[in-house]
């Protein structure tokens, strides 16, 4: 009746996951009760859960990423403490628990923090920058988000019900095959990624179509803001790479569930095929994450330097070059496979070539700052911090792209330091910069600068103290994923890394405080103008938060930095009165619970598949299919916002803007 599920799935003997799970459950129940008692449930349902507004969905993506960042971060803290005290001792974590922690940490940080964070920011900002009303497929957008949330939920369920994979974040066979991992850990891993992977693919298709087909009048390709270009590149990579992940995980699951022999040791299976397939997805994935961050830096650096982006066209070219080359380097993840010197040399050189367009970008940001009026607001701090940090990560990347060096450094802590250097210093700093930069746009009030700057400095310092020692122990021969060790030379560096982790944690606390303080002071931090940073692209042309339809009219774009040019023009015209345009009715997509209901059935299906509860699998799949048929049967999928309402909202926006321009003129 319940497949493999019974009471032994609950880890009564292990206090840490049990207590953590209990605390989280109590917190969730508490929030739910508070929501119901206070009567917020209808508001949540109508305004957020069933919303198909790209801005709301973007905010929910970022919220999911932030919560999961705390979850993945607590895993990181546990690992650093373990390695700090596990010198000639077992430490405080049993080995099988430690193995689950590092697997969960990697899986969560990549799939449920970095991915939703960048997809959320792209969702929120790209339609605004393109001057359009929504993404290409609004309901599908909601489905994509809720499927991502399903994956995150399943990973967290594994904390209390059953176990998570002990195989590392990419579940290499034959360790992940049934004979070596008979438990449900790998199944949790594979099904949660399979479901959230579908969500990511949907988001990718949506954003590619949005950028290519929905730009506003005059928004030629070479006038798109840099963030739109990097979004396009990143989502092209999603569309091309995520099906590879889907196929690879499907093969692994067929091996585990039906006794197939794709990657087994016996009957002719080929383990190295898994390495090739997973990294053919996994390497582009790195650029899926970092390209949008590059876009954010471009926007931030240009805005806070008060200058157009230096070398815009070379930036576009560099972005697209990275997009293509990133698919040609996957083999550098297993130089030690034995493919031979020729293959290794080709992939090594291809890997180093990526440093060229990336270097072009760094120089372009530096030249954008050169001669500019730089304002060191929090987003700019994150950007400059990124440039300093990422260069080290890039240089160590070129180092491990040299095959002979890689034979020494392969699977060492040096590698761990390298990819944390680029993922934290590249992606996460970018995500934070984007968060600080666009927060006023999303919510209509600014974030507290003092807490933000404190958060930056603690995180930045903490990052360096944590990860530079890992380079050193890597050079001293420490391999990754060690539960305990007895080499005296590593010990001091592990202690320094643990101290760095404490500093990093203070940074996280500062950022949480920033959010709390800003929400409490939101009246004082209110952004009336919609353009708090003196921005250059179209998202600043509408009010903060934008109306549901974003723009009363499709803006008419005449050049790069569209909104900057409009502001300059308005100042030159000395606010001459313009005849009010004719407002028209606007059709917007109706809310739909499709995404939420679909994710509900996906959760049931995923959970049932993990525990082999077959009747529940059938129920879940039928439910998901029925959801789509019901969605397809709707007769009215749009509603009309009358012209009078559009006019009212737009006049308020224009008045605020006039006051802004006249103030600027007075100065």
């Amino acid at each position: 009746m319940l497949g493999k599920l019974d009471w032994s799935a609950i880890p009564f003997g292990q206090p840490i996951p049990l207590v953590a799970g209990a605390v989280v459950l109590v917190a969730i129940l508490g929030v739910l009760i508070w929501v119901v008692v206070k009567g917020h449930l209808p508001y949540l349902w109508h305004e957020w859960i069933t919303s198909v507004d790209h801005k709301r969905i973007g905010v929910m993506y970022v919220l999911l990423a932030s919560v999961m960042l705390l979850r993945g971060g607590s895993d990181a803290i546990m690992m650093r403490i373990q390695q700090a005290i596990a010198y000639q001792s077992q430490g405080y974590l049993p080995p099988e628990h430690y193995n689950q922690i590092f697997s969960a940490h990697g899986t969560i940080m990549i799939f449920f923090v970095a991915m939703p964070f960048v997809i959320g920011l792209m969702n929120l900002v790209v339609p605004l920058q393109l001057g359009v009303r929504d993404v290409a497929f609004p309901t599908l957008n909601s489905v994509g988000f809720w499927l991502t949330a399903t994956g995150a939920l399943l990973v967290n369920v594994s904390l209390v019900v059953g176990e998570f994979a002990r195989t590392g974040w990419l579940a290499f066979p034959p360790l992940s095959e049934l004979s070596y991992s008979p438990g449900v850990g790998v199944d949790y891993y594979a099904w949660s990624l399979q479901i959230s992977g579908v969500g990511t693919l949907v988001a990718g298709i949506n954003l590619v179509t949005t950028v290519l087909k929905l730009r506003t009048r005059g928004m030629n390709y070479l006038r798109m803001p840099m963030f739109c270009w990097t979004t396009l590149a990143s989502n092209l990579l999603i569309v091309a790479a995520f099906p590879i992940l889907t196929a690879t995980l499907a093969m692994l699951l067929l091996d585990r569930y039906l006794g197939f022999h794709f990657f087994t040791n016996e009957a002719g299976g080929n383990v190295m095929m898994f390495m090739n397939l997973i990294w053919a997805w996994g390497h582009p994935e790195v650029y899926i994450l970092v390209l949008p961050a590059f876009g954010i830096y471009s926007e931030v650096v240009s805005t806070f330097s008060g200058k157009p982006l230096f070398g815009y066209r070379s930036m576009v070219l560099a972005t697209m070059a990275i997009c293509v080359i990133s698919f040609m380097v996957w083999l550098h993840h297993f130089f030690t496979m034995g493919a031979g010197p020729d293959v290794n040399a080709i992939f090594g050189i291809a890997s180093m070539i990526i440093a060229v367009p990336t270097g072009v970008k760094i120089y372009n940001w530096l030249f954008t700052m050169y001669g500019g009026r730089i304002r060191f607001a929090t987003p700019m701090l994150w950007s400059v911090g990124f440039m300093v940090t990422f260069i080290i990560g890039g240089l160590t990347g070129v180092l491990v792209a040299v095959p002979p060096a890689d034979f020494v450094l392969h699977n060492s802590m040096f590698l761990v330091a390298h990819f944390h250097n680029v993922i934290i210093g590249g992606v996460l700093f970018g995500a934070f910069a984007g968060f600080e930069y666009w927060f006023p746009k999303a919510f209509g009030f600014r974030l507290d600068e003092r807490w933000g700057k404190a958060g930056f400095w603690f995180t930045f310092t903490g990052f360096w103290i944590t990860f530079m020692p890992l380079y050193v122990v890597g050079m001293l021969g420490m391999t990754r994923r060690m539960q305990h060790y007895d080499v005296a030379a590593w010990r001091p560096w592990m202690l320094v890394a643990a101290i760095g982790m404490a500093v990093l944690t203070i940074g996280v606390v500062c950022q949480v405080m920033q959010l709390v303080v800003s929400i409490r002071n939101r009246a004082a931090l209110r952004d009336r103008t919609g353009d708090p940073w003196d921005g250059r692209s179209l998202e600043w042309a509408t009010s903060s938060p934008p109306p549901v339809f974003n723009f009363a009219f499709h803006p008419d774009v005449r050049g790069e930095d569209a909104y900057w040019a409009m502001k300059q023009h308005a100042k030159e015209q000395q606010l001459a009165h313009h005849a009010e345009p004719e407002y028209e009715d606007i059709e917007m997509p109706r809310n739909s619970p499709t995404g939420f209901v679909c994710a509900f059935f996906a959760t049931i299906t995923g959970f049932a598949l993990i525990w082999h509860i077959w009747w529940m699998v059938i129920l879940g799949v039928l439910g998901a299919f029925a959801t789509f048929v019901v969605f397809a049967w709707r007769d009215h999928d749009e509603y009309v916002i009358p012209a009078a309402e559009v006019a009212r909202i737009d006049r308020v926006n224009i008045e605020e803007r006039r006051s802004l321009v006249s103030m600027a003129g007075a100065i």
Partner: protein
Amino acid sequence: MAMTATYGHARTDPHHIGRVAEHAGPAPKRIVTAYGFWVFLLSDIVMFSCFFAAYAVLVSQTADGPKGSEIFEQRNVAIETVCLLLSSFTCGMASIAADVRNRFWFYLGMAVTCVLGLAFLSIEFREFADLVSRGYGPSRSAFLTAFFSLVGCHGLHVSAGVLWLLTMMAQVFAKGFRADILRRMMCFALFWHALDIIWVAVFSVVYLLGGAP
């Protein structure tokens, strides 16, 4: 409103490369839908290419089990191919009927497409069942694993297509040729034709190359 007002063209052509063709604005819904669906189909083809790659890697790993030439029956494959190619034709007829709002020919075209699709599936099912009954199931060897997965993945797509086809017929029956339903019909037709293209690859790579002794 300021943003729609005209202003100087100073920044229109900052690099003096000549006239810049002005982008006309968002594309109509029909284009957007079809374009998005094309992008999805491309991603689906990437997924298939992984199964093709796995097949190519594992084709010689028979683990002392049968080779392709010992188990493939060219006659069955020929009938399957004819069924699928014909169904693409009838699907095209149904699309044209939908464009000219002719219910009778639409239902007829879709029904024939459905029957041909089911015929294809039943032949494939019989082939699989026969192999399994002889002890040549997917867990016999890595080659059979790759064979069943690649051909089965295509079969699953056809099954999903049949389900979608029936849903489309029901939608037209209940709601007529509405604009959104015609857009869905266009996506369905693209999907069905793409399956045909993938079958041509399966047929060539698996059965023609593998059938040679």
